[in-house]
């Protein structure tokens, strides 16, 4: 045995984990292109990784590990096709795989890995899948997160998450969800769906509505990574730039946003010195680039709002009037009452809590079950010197809170007026 080439099983496992995180998207994309079967692509990749663990522990890393995995996974697929009793229907895919394998064998070089990630993400974010499923499948397929990691992020059991993923792959194959980049006339809408999935992933981590927050913060980083990938695959898209800018600008506040006890620190009390200036600079540069394209959209507007916060040396000197105007523009794009709620918050700092309370009347029915609505109203009432009404709103907001840090924060504020 060659001592230099040998490595421990632990070493091989680490190498495979690193490779899985970096290359799963490209490997699955290539396998899906060849096999046209999502579950089979996934299973063959898993088998190839298991086989890599065995071979690499014994013989050391091959010269091109990802190529090695692809070649092995293709052979697993060839085996499966041969054993399949419905072989006839897959004869074409079988032929493609066999030819690819022979090409590789002839040159003795590991196969090049084609980049099919754009097609893959359009498939994972297809509107015929449930929105939570889209996020989970994207994390599994494009980011290479394990099913266990995704389950933890969603506070779900591994079994339930595994079943969800199997069901999703089954539907993609059986219902004929295409592995294709949509036609130009549908591109815009489908691209929006992809960006929405990425933003949903980010918010899942950022707002951490349930369960243990620290586990979920990884989701923010994954979402930023996906956003960057989309920028790479579809450069010059203003909304995509806006989305990445928005995520960077929001994420930059994370170090100042959580107290030592895990409670969320409100924007007005955050130590802005803790904000990540590197992320802010990158976010602002991306936003400027996006705005110069003169194709305004909701992500750019939200990023612009976040950038105004990042710009302000403190809460009081924030350009609240400008933020109110940006929320107006945003509501013009997306008729979401939450934007009107945020507008009211900005208004309370621009002109005063009384006007903000008035502005809440129009959205009261829509947002009655929405915790932030009552938290905002409680805050306006507190600042308008109406402690008794404020207390009512705080109690309602606490009742609607989904996690401990929100409850801690609201109880803290309520105690201040008592």
């Amino acid at each position, binding site marked *: 045995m060659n001592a230099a080439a040998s490595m421990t099983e632990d070493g091989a496992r680490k190498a495979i984990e690193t490779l899985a995180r970096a290359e799963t998207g490209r490997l699955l994309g290539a396998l899906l292109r060849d096999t046209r079967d999502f579950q089979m692509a996934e299973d063959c990749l898993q088998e190839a990784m298991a086989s890599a663990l065995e071979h690499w522990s014994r013989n050391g890393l091959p010269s091109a590990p990802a190529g090695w995995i692809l070649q092995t996974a293709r052979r697993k697929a060839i085996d499966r096709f041969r054993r399949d009793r419905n072989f006839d*229907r897959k004869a074409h895919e079988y032929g493609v795989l066999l030819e690819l394998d022979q090409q590789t064998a002839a040159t003795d070089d590991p196969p090049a890995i084609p980049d099919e990630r754009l097609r893959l993400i359009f498939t994972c974010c297809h509107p*015929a899948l449930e929105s939570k499923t889209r996020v989970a499948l994207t994390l599994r397929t494009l980011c290479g997160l394990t099913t266990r990691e995704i389950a933890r992020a969603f506070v779900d059991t591994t079994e339930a998450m595994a079943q969800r993923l199997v069901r999703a792959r089954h539907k993609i194959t059986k219902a*004929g*969800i295409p592995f294709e980049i949509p036609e130009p006339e549908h591109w815009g809408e489908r691209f929006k769906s992809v960006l929405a999935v990425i933003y949903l992933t980010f918010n899942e981590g950022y707002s951490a509505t349930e369960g243990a927050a620290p586990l979920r913060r990884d989701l923010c980083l994954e979402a930023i990574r996906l956003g960057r990938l989309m920028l790479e695959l579809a450069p010059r898209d203003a909304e995509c730039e806006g989305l990445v800018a928005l995520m960077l600008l929001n994420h930059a506040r994370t170090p100042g946003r959580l107290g030592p006890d895990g409670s969320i620190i409100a924007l007005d009390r955050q130590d802005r010195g803790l904000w990540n200036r590197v992320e802010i600079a990158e976010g602002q540069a991306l936003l400027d680039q996006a705005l110069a394209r003169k194709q305004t959209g909701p992500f750019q507007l939200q990023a612009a709002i976040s950038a105004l916060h990042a710009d302000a040396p403190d809460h009081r000197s924030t350009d609240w009037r400008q933020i109110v105007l940006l929320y107006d523009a945003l509501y013009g794009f997306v008729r979401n009452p939450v934007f009107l709620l945020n507008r009211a918050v900005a208004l309370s700092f621009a002109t005063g809590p009384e006007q903000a309370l008035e502005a809440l009347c129009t959205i009261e029915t829509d947002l009655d079950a929405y915790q932030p609505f009552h938290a905002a109203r409680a805050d306006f009432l507190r600042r308008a010197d109406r402690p008794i009404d404020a207390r009512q709103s705080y109690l309602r907001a606490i009742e609607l809170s989904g996690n401990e840090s929100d409850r801690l924060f609201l109880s803290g504020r309520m105690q201040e007026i008592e």
Partner: protein
Amino acid sequence: MKYLALIYAAPGAGPDYGTPEFGPYMDGYRKATETYQNDGVMLAGEALQDSSTATTVRVRNGKIETMDGPFAETKEQLGGFYMFDCANLDEAIRYAAMIPTAEHGSIEVRPIMEINFDQ
């Protein structure tokens, strides 16, 4: 791939026969069917009689049992179907969306399972 587009609507949700809206509604069906035929995707398509005319059949212990009415009493009832031959789900969804009932009812798009009885 073959897809069945099942057309569901609540009774009385669409335009009634004899009202001015009924003509354009039926015209919509005629136009949609024409498009399917011209595009070469239509395998079949029929409208069904009212769900009150349905009979549900079961065989239990070798005995035929019949029941008056549809299998499931739901608010939206099956009123007709199309069968399409499409490249993928995106195409099937596009054609299903042209069915006039989609504007007040729901179209369920289901892929047809291919079964080979020779094996």
